[in-house]
């Protein structure tokens, strides 16, 4: 058998996944902390102040990566949920459900830092602006997925129901993305483009890229740890969990 295919099949084994997650999560966290330290140093001490917003613009270096993560994690959660629904792969159910609290955490950071940034720049903590409102709806969707997963005792049925909600919720992502284009918005339009021309000065972009990379590594570490926890909860009572816990055989 092809080694990659064999590895993929092995990963579906709960004890193998537990060992895999326990081994690689610290590496992902380590890389996240390294890249984050470099990005934060640049964001707070190297990049010059904005000529209009002063130093408040430095909030961008945590606000934008968190906002991108809030959308990316939701899309990935729906992707895993779709695979789990179609092919009934248990590991994909676990990964989809592990995405929800991480995405919710990044959405909370996005909303909170946006609010803190909005107060000095817009003169208000909150406005029912299309971008802010749709991001808040995204948080409610994340909470809905988490709540639905916890509300049903049968873990597999719970994952299927919550996964369906995640798949339906994907329709919100383009609305969030284009809300500043479709409607008049207090929120600023797009300033950074991966493929087109960015309106942000090049000297300010580098720490942002480091922070985007750092949040991705963080997500990988967190996903592995949360999936490991869910895997252990589902497998409670199995022999390999007893051995791992050091209990009597």
């Amino acid at each position, binding site marked *: 058998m092809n080694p990659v295919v064999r590895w993929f099949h092995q990963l579906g084994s709960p004890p193998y996944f537990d060992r895999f997650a326990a081994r690689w999560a610290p590496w992902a966290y380590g890389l996240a902390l390294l890249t984050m330290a470099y990005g934060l140093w640049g964001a707070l001490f190297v990049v010059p102040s904005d000529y209009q917003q002063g130093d408040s613009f430095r909030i961008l270096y945590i606000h934008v990566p968190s906002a991108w993560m809030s959308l990316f994690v939701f899309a990935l959660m729906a992707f895993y949920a779709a695979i789990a629904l179609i092919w009934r792969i248990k590991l994909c159910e676990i990964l989809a459900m592990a995405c929800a609290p991480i995405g919710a955490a990044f959405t909370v950071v996005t909303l909170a830092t946006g609010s803190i940034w909005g107060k000095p720049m817009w003169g208000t903590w909150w406005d029912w602006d299309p971008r802010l409102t749709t991001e808040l709806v995204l948080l409610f969707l994340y909470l809905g997925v988490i709540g639905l997963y916890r509300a049903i005792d049968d873990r597999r049925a719970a994952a299927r129901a919550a996964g369906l909600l995640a798949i339906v919720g994907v329709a919100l992502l383009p609305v969030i993305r284009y809300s500043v284009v479709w409607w008049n918005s207090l929120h600023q339009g797009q300033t950074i483009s991966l493929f087109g021309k960015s309106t942000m000065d090049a000297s300010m972009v580098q720490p942002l890229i480091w922070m985007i990379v750092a949040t991705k590594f963080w997500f990988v570490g967190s996903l592995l740890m949360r999936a490991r926890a869910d895997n252990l909860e589902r497998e*409670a009572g199995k022999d390999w969990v007893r051995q791992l816990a050091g209990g009597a055989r």
Partner: protein
Amino acid sequence: MSYQNYVFAAYAVFAAVLLWDFVAPRLAIRRFLRAAKMRAARNPAPADKNAPLARE
């Protein structure tokens, strides 16, 4: 630094949420493993069916 308090508050929220995200799964894993250990101590697993029978 201008708007210093706002910048510090935003970074503090970021750090606090990431700290929670780091700690929460570890606490859950510890809880599940402790529960598994207690369950194993309460209900020891049956002897291996394939083990040879004792002759004495």
